[in-house]
């Protein structure tokens, strides 16, 4: 055969530009080592069940019954499933036309979208329209759908926090847009400074880029910071002034580990601010069943809620959703269960609360253990994980280490993380995968390993790190911010 139609040279260039470090070099190397028999602790992705977190019992009972509705007719089903799970399964099955195996409405089952709207109303105090809520196969697919609408070409820029979860940079590359970074301030607990925002936008416009949208991740990933209400107001004002659509990634809204800054949704703040902001700023908010204390990553369940998007455009977004027919129905039911949880008095309520609290309280303790653990290491400084699922310590690499990395043709934090992996089996994601200030290095790990394993993991890390620093340290200079 002569010509091959698809070889590396003839691939879509945008595909080649995509980077997604969460499952990149470190993860691939860790998988290789695992195959060779080394024990690996995967802390590269927010995947709680993979690290031993158990699924909540009630949702699994309900979905199992929905999968096999013939069970509902069996007289002994009550011996295995509690009555409220049985009732809830019937409730969700009645919302479908044909059970789990039929395509639903392309936006998701209306009954579930209604439950999501009711959840949003309870959470924020403002009504939400189910017609503007679309369920998706995971929040990531929703993000990609919305960015696909926004990005027309290279001239379109999207403001993205740095450090950021690389779904955003990868998707912007894939769709041929321009990433406009705004730096979060590490010394101010990864705070957002509106002046940084203004500067980023000005620089982008100077280059001829039309800045179209702004992404906020609240609580932050990888940084974990929870935005204050004042911050959210500044952001909304900014989007109003600059005519940007605000994309609020709020998938970690249940993961809050301090009490000074509880979660407030961008929508609530927007509504609180009243017109013109509440009527004109365009907002798309994202949520998922993958995080929180549910951690049901494998279900691929998510939604986005649109505010102030014109009806004709909503129709176009609906049209695109319809090409993929519908989001998967079991995950829609998980979403319904998450936003419409058990109530006091329900048979399974106490178990549900016990399981949920157990997970959240443990996450809070682990956030503290990890932060303190990192801060006890030589040349490591770590902001507290206020929310989400990650720790993002800064590793102050000595110049000799950076030299060694360059010799090995590796980015310095990749070099460090590979050495860490090989020495301890801890698989992290280098900070360069998320973006960071020039010359400043980090790594991202999750706070998800089991609590009983944490002390050992942290001491294993400390041992490696302190030895590494001794090996490469110069007495008179360190890399620093």
């Amino acid at each position, binding site marked *: 055969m002569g010509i091959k139609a698809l070889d590396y040279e003839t691939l879509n260039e945008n595909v080649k530009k995509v980077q997604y470090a969460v499952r990149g070099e470190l993860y691939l190397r860790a998988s290789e080592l695992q195959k060779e028999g080394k024990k690996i602790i995967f802390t590269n992705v927010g*995947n709680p*069940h993979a690290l031993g977190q158990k699924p909540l019992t009630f949702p699994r009972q309900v979905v199992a019954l929905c999968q096999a509705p013939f069970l509902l007719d069996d007289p002994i089903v009550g011996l295995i499933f509690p009555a409220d799970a049985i009732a809830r399964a019937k409730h969700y099955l009645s919302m479908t036309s*044909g*059970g789990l195996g039929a395509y639903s409405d392309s936006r998701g089952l209306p009954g579930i979208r209604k439950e999501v709207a009711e959840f949003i109303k309870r959470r924020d105090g403002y009504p939400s329209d189910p017609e503007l809520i679309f369920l998706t196969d995971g929040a990531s697919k929703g993000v990609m759908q919305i960015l696909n609408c926004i990005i*027309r070409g290279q001239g379109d820029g999207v403001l993205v926090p740095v450090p950021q979860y690389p779904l955003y940079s990868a998707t912007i590359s894939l769709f041929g847009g321009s990433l406009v970074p705004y730096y979060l301030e590490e010394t101010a607990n990864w705070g957002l400074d509106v002046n940084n925002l203004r500067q980023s936008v000005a620089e982008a416009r100077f280059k001829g880029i039309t800045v179209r949208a702004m992404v906020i991740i609240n609580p932050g990933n990888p940084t974990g910071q929870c935005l204050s209400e004042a911050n959210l107001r500044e952001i909304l004002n900014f989007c109003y002034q600059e005519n940007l659509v605000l994309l609020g990634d709020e998938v970690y809204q249940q993961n809050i580990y301090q009490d000074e800054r509880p979660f407030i949704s961008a929508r609530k703040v927007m509504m609180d601010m009243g017109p013109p902001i509440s009527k004109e700023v365009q907002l798309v908010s994202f949520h998922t069943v993958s995080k929180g204390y549910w951690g049901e990553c494998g279900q691929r369940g998510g939604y986005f809620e649109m505010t102030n998007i014109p009806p004709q455009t909503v129709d176009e977004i609906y049209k695109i959703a319809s090409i993929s027919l519908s989001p998967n129905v079991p995950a829609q039911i998980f979403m319904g269960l998450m936003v419409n949880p058990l109530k006091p008095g329900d048979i399974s309520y106490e178990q549900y609360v016990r399981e949920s609290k157990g997970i959240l309280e443990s996450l809070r303790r682990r956030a503290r253990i990890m932060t303190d653990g990192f801060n006890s290491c030589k040349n490591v400084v770590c902001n507290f994980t206020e929310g989400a699922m990650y720790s993002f310590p800064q590793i102050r690499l000595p110049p000799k280490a950076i030299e060694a990395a360059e010799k090995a043709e590796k980015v310095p934090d990749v070099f460090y993380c590979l050495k860490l992996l090989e020495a301890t089996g801890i698989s992290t994601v280098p900070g360069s995968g998320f973006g960071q200030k020039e010359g400043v290095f980090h790594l991202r790990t999750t706070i998800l390993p089991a609590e009983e394993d944490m002390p050992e993991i942290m001491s294993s890390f400390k041992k490696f790190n302190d030895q590494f620093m001794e090996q490469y340290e110069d007495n008179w200079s360190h890399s620093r911010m």
Partner: protein
Amino acid sequence: MQRFMISKARNLLESSRQNYHFQRSQLFSPQSAHRFLSSTPAANFDSSSFSSTMAPPVSINTINPKVLECEYAVRGEIVTLAQKLQQEIQTKPEAHPFEEILYCNIGNPQSLGQQPITFFREVLALCDHPSILDKSETQGLFSADSIERAWQILDQIPGRATGAYSHSQGIKGLRDTIAAGIEDRDGFPADPNDIFLTDGASPAVHMMMRLLIRSEKDGILCPIPLYPLYSASIALHGGTLVPCYLDEATGWGLEVSELKKQLETARSKGITVRALVVINPGNPTGQVLAEENQKAIVEFCKQEGLVLLADEVYQENVYVPEKKFHSFKKVSRSMGYDEKDISLVSFQSVSKGYYGECGKRGGYMEVTGFSADVREQIYKVSSVNLCSNISGQILASLVMSPPKVGDESYKSHNAERDGILSSLASRAKTLEDAFNELEGVTCNKAEGAMYLFPRICLTEKAIKAAEATKTAPDAFYCRRLLTATGIVFVPGSGFGQVPGTWHFRCTILPQEEKIPAIITRLTDFHKSFLNEFCD
């Protein structure tokens, strides 16, 4: 629907595809004025006085024009109207001359009463809630082999965690099972590393289009009529659809001579044709390709250096004894062609067949004949979405490895399967005959898949009436049919057709007991339509 054919016919081979450049031609729209202004240095830019005159970032004039361009008739205008009518009947039963909407627009079997396969659902339920496997009562509720299979599957999942993200290609053990199933089916080996499990076959198709299409100069050769996922995906990715008409007179045959002709024409216009889409069994056309035809297609792709995108989601839907499904992988290997000779992507899904599990979103693509660095890129793009839903992955593995002789569920599984397939075959025949009875309507046999695609001759009067309402004639007919009878068909213009011919697509899925009523209502409507519009 009209937009599809008219704009497509005009733009198909044009190199000026609607894309970002489209915006530049609109020099005087307020939105592009904004863009001009925004490119001036920051010092001259006063943002605060500017905001009230600018179009919002997410509005019809400012969103990605490729989004506007693509169409998906299967859930288009007619369906929206049907849903509206359905709501009207619910609140006011006398509102319309029918009691219910009869959806014949979409291949969604379980929404029309088809039952799921018991064994598959048993395994899925156990995998969703594995803690019941330890209970003795479970033995009384589930078949022994479903319990065994659930254990087997759970042991292939690290930590038995069905709620965890898996490997981005899908759980390795499940891919092993699928590869073994492919080998059983074809008699040629399959490599689990070639398999990418996806949320249904559609995302896999989108992924390939994204890899293949660099600009409007990249063309994808497609049979027309065509399942509109492909036309929509090509438009969304900014490529060019290169059409090749199937021959209705010969049962929708795909002639290689016709393929060659279209290829040459496209090339002469500066289009690089990258791939050929073949849907076998066909959608909407329902033909099952003859093996000789398939060999010629493989040869053609090999000679011309095209990627063969083989949509084989209906592989278990074959209704005629004289035809058999042969995968393109099997055909290629049987010709002695291997990875070096032909680049082939085969798509399969859990949505069709006899299992009809549309709502689960399970499927995979088997990718063979690409270099390692291309494969790496496919993996990388898959990893951004982390993985497909685990339950769908499990189901895909079950579909490719159903109960075997000796398994407890073997007989009942086969009985369920055969019941569904024979019912589909009989409904296909009944409806085909009914369409052929209608005056001015001819209908090819549905050899496979789930659809009939009858051709309807419309009079000049009807066509003029349609034009007056700015609707494609076949959409006009379908709309009238809907409002008179509650029956929902998809106009042929949503799939593409030879210009000047009209068709509609009807599924073979309505329940058997509803079919006589459908036929009666259709026949009555058709007579009155002909009377109204006789020249």
